[in-house]
């Protein structure tokens, strides 16, 4: 990695983080969306502690999935509209790596808050200490996978009518494996079973996503900018 590339990656990441801090209402909206969706479930299904403990992992995970999907709208759209994205493509640095830097910044801004909030929401469902810990860990490994896969959908739907709902349609089916293993880890922890395997599979998905998704994202970005 040359010094120039390192500099470019750091600049992209830093710029996006700075933007996220300046436009923090965007981030707060997503975090509160996550909290509200999770809190609606007990109101819908009843406050039976046994039922809630069984539902908790799945509910928090599905809500995190929806929240991270909702956050995709702000990943490329503004940069696409004001021409920054075009500059990025023309920058001469490898686009997959630049895309990876953007997704990383996006995850730090919108995914990490979900991870940090999740134990608190797990308490609403009566998860025990081990369950809360595994919930946060599984989300810490899983939400970057969601961001990476989601970025492909966000890039494909850039400037397309019906963008948000369309992105959901493209991306949600691809989230299924992460959901299964992420929520599965928390369920296993709740039943005092081994959950290391789930987390390992989730980790494998993360590495695969880091290796493959940037190529698809950059291909999609180039198509959008043609």
């Amino acid at each position, binding site marked *: 990695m040359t010094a120039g590339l390192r500099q470019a990656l750091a600049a992209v990441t830093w710029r996006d983080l700075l933007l996220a801090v300046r436009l923090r209402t965007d981030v707060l909206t997503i975090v509160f969306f996550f909290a509200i969706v999770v809190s609606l479930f007990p109101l819908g299904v009843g406050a039976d502690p046994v039922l809630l403990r069984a539902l908790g992992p799945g509910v928090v995970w599905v809500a995190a999935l929806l929240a991270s999907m909702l956050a995709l709208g702000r990943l490329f759209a503004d940069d696409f509209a004001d021409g920054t994205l075009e500059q990025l493509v023309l920058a001469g640095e490898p686009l997959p790596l630049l895309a990876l830097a953007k997704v990383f910044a996006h995850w730090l801004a919108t995914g990490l808050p979900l991870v940090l909030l999740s134990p608190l929401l797990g308490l609403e469902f009566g998860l025990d200490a081990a369950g809360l810990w595994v919930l946060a860990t599984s989300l810490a490994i899983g939400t970057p996978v969601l961001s990476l*896969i989601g970025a492909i959908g966000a890039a494909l*739907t850039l400037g*397309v009518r*019906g963008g948000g709902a*369309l992105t959901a349609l*493209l991306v949600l089916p691809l989230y299924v494996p992460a959901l299964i293993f992420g929520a*599965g880890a928390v369920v296993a922890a709740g039943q005092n079973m081994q959950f290391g395997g789930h987390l390992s599979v989730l980790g494998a998905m993360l590495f695969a996503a880091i290796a493959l998704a940037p190529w*698809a994202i950059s291909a999609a970005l180039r198509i959008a900018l*043609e």
Partner: protein
Amino acid sequence: MALNIWKYASPQTFFPLAGRMIPVFTVLAIVFAVVGLYIGFFVAPTDFQQGEVYRIIFIHVPAAWMSMFIYLVMAFWAGVGLTFNTRLSSMMAHALAPTGALMTFIALWTGSLWGKPTWGTWWVWDARLTSELILLFLYVGYMALAAAIDDVRRADKASAVLALVGVVNVPIIYFSVQWWNTLHQGASVNLTRAPSMAASMLTGMLLMALAFWMYSIAVSLLRVRAIIRERERDAAWLQDSA
């Protein structure tokens, strides 16, 4: 003299060729379906466990096979179109998607009707049915993306990327659903137990699979001709032949 296969990559040459191929595949589909249904309903014995309801297998399994196979073929043509920039390949991918989605729907519908008497409910979160449901969503997403982009060339390329991403994910989705299913509940009756099937059952099923295959080719060729007509309507060659 070397045969130039790229010649057939041109919509202009392919259009009449497809027109000649459609009747062939239609006849093949009808023949396979007639023989397959005859064997399925009049030769294959009654299943000792499930009774006559098992006869749904002759459309359920072929539809499920085709739904997965068509996705692979669709992704293949989409990938070819993306790599070599051949317009016909992308059109072929678009022509296959609705048929694939339909096959997925048939597999789900017949699976549900089979599940009711066998499992006692219309829907079971069985690994196969769940994967088919997700596959249906993948097809719908592909078609929705292609339809949402007005610029044809961008629609081709963007949907091709999605199809390729989908094809990488399909095995991952399939195995995670399988794993999830074995953990949560084991469906006691397995719908398709190949090893214990009578030979005539298997023959009927394979013939019906061939019929579905030929049908899919015929109807996709018909659709690709419609797509060529829509896209090339200003081209002189089409106005001569139409």
